[in-house]
């Protein structure tokens, strides 16, 4: 009786099986890795903007406080975007003819708002409140990255649920004295109260901080 399979079939079988195994591993690996790379999370990616606003210049070099523009950061769920009027409070005096600022001047003249592209976006099913984070000593740069060194604003953190939970489960390392929240250059010194001391001082209950209803109401 003639053989059905030639000896080469052994090799083919091994290649096919091995290839299938490698494919499964590759798919699983890609499935694990893809949500973590910046191509997917947009971390470090700067959105194109109608005006190439530089936080590096305004915050890092000029030292303008965050709250000059983001007025409601301490009191509202939203940090707030500056109205055109805020931009023009300086730029009606300096750089009045800069081509770069033409959209700002046009906005004021025509009464049409500047439409910025959002860098940080949360889904609607997350009830995020900006003010509570600020008042409990989470610094701006903790979530928004080194904003004072961003010529164009890029996304500082993935804003994925795992990232939120990392901090909600163990907030102590990310806390700072409340007066340093808006300081982008703050560094922990030996005199700084420890994370645990700040936890007690702010009355933060870590045990319930990762309850579902804290963010999903």
């Amino acid at each position: 009786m003639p053989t059905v399979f030639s000896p080469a079939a052994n090799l083919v079988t091994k290649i096919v099986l091995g290839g299938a195994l490698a494919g499964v591993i590759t798919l699983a690996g890609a499935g694990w890795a893809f949500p973590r790379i910046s191509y997917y999370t947009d971390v470090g990616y700067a959105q194109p903007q109608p005006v190439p606003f530089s936080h590096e210049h305004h915050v890092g070099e000029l030292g303008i406080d965050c709250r000059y523009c983001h007025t409601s950061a301490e009191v509202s769920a939203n940090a707030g975007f500056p109205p055109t009027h805020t931009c023009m409070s300086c730029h009606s005096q300096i750089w009045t003819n800069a081509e770069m600022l033409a959209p700002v001047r046009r906005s004021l003249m025509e009464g049409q708002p500047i439409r910025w592209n959002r860098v940080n976006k949360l889904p609607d099913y997350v009830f995020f409140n900006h003010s509570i984070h600020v008042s409990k000593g989470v610094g701006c740069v903790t979530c928004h990255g080194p904003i004072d060194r961003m010529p164009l604003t890029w996304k500082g953190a993935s804003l994925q649920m795992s990232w939120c939970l990392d901090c909600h489960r163990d907030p102590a390392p990310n806390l700072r004295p409340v007066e340093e929240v808006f300081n982008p250059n703050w560094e922990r010194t030996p005199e700084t109260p420890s994370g645990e001391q700040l936890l007690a001082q702010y009355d933060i209950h870590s045990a319930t901080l990762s309850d579902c209803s804290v963010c999903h109401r």
Partner: protein
Amino acid sequence: MPSMNGKRGRELWRSLDELAQGPEIEAMLQREFPGLPSLDDVRIGRRRFLELMGASFALSGLAGCGPANVPDEAVPYVEMPPGLVPGVPRTFATAVTRGGYADGVLITHQMGRPIKVEGNSAHPASLGATDSIVQASILDLYDPDRSQTVLSRGNVAGTNAFVTALMARGGGGGLRILSGSVTSPTLAAQIAGLRQRFPELRWHRWEADRSDPAGEGAVLAFGRRVDTVLHVQRANVILAIESDFLDAAPGHLVYARDFARRRRAAEEGGAADMNRLYAVESVPTLAGARADHRFVATPYEIEAAVRALAAELGVGPEEWRAARPAWVSAVARDLGRNRGAALVHAGPAQSAAVHALVHAINGALGAPGSTLTYIDPVEAEPVNQAESLSELVRDMEAGKVDTLVILGSNPVFSAPADLRFASALGRCRCRCIWGRMSMKRRRFAPGTCLKRMSSSGGAMRGLMTGR
């Protein structure tokens, strides 16, 4: 089954309905489901239907073909309103009117977008309560037909253009105003001012939610119109004659609260303080639903019952008692035992005679001054609105109306159909609508001077003062 004899395969019925098909079944179906179309009238066959459904399913996949990662936009103000904090809701106080009567409300909004209407606890007609109509009124604010600006024949026009156009047409007998019930002293004074400038101006009234018989009944009883303010909290026994005192009458939010307070008396330990509510009605009302004793009667029987009640209480001739329903004597006894603490209220759909009788009965029960107060009409220059509107339609058809200014009402929608208001309106040379909603999509015939006004009030002031 004789109809199945000698038949095979497809000749046999495919369902019980088809087997049972007969003229009497058809007629029964027609009676039972008058809107149901016959299968013979169906234009789309089964195959065509499945084709369309399949195509719909396939096309729904196109939703996945949109551009990915489109950035969301953040749109800040150009000039931020003073005191506003983005993300923190704010509240302003205003009023929602119904039939000309206002309920005070608080509207909560997020950066100018209203999200909730609630009662204003500091407003005497609300005390923090609202009803379903006020709750739903928030949708008005998002109505796509809501006016944004003054329009002339569909094009944007300035407020001044409106006043100029109207002034250029002049007054004379051809100038008419049609409004709803006006309870605003300011607006009434402005119309009076316009009358001084145009002495021949005629002011017509039409409000869909109104009661002409109530006014006529007061004229029958007192020789003049009055409004009745109820003091429900002082009434031990109440008779509601198809009454809307709990759900629609001016002040009903307060009446409902006062009624409920006396209702809770038993729970709060004073069972003797609890009130009793009788209701007689031909359509269900909230008062009927809350009543201790509810009597159902046809509209004709209601009037007969009220006459019998008047006779029982000594304010009507004896013969009215003849055909009284059994319950009338019991109610009359209960009301009579509570003189000075009894209250009878008739609803807006009752005839003028019933309203007049109710005034007489209340008088006999000592209600005025205790459970109710008569006041001068809140409405400015009240008229019989049905007559007022038909007079206007007659004049429009006779070509006597040159310019008609419609203030805040939509008579094309709400006027009785047999008046043919819309076709009569076409005979006016200039039609101006001043209201919150654009009338364009509501079957208003396009006119020589169809205008849509913003609700800013500026134009109204300008118009009324002739500036």
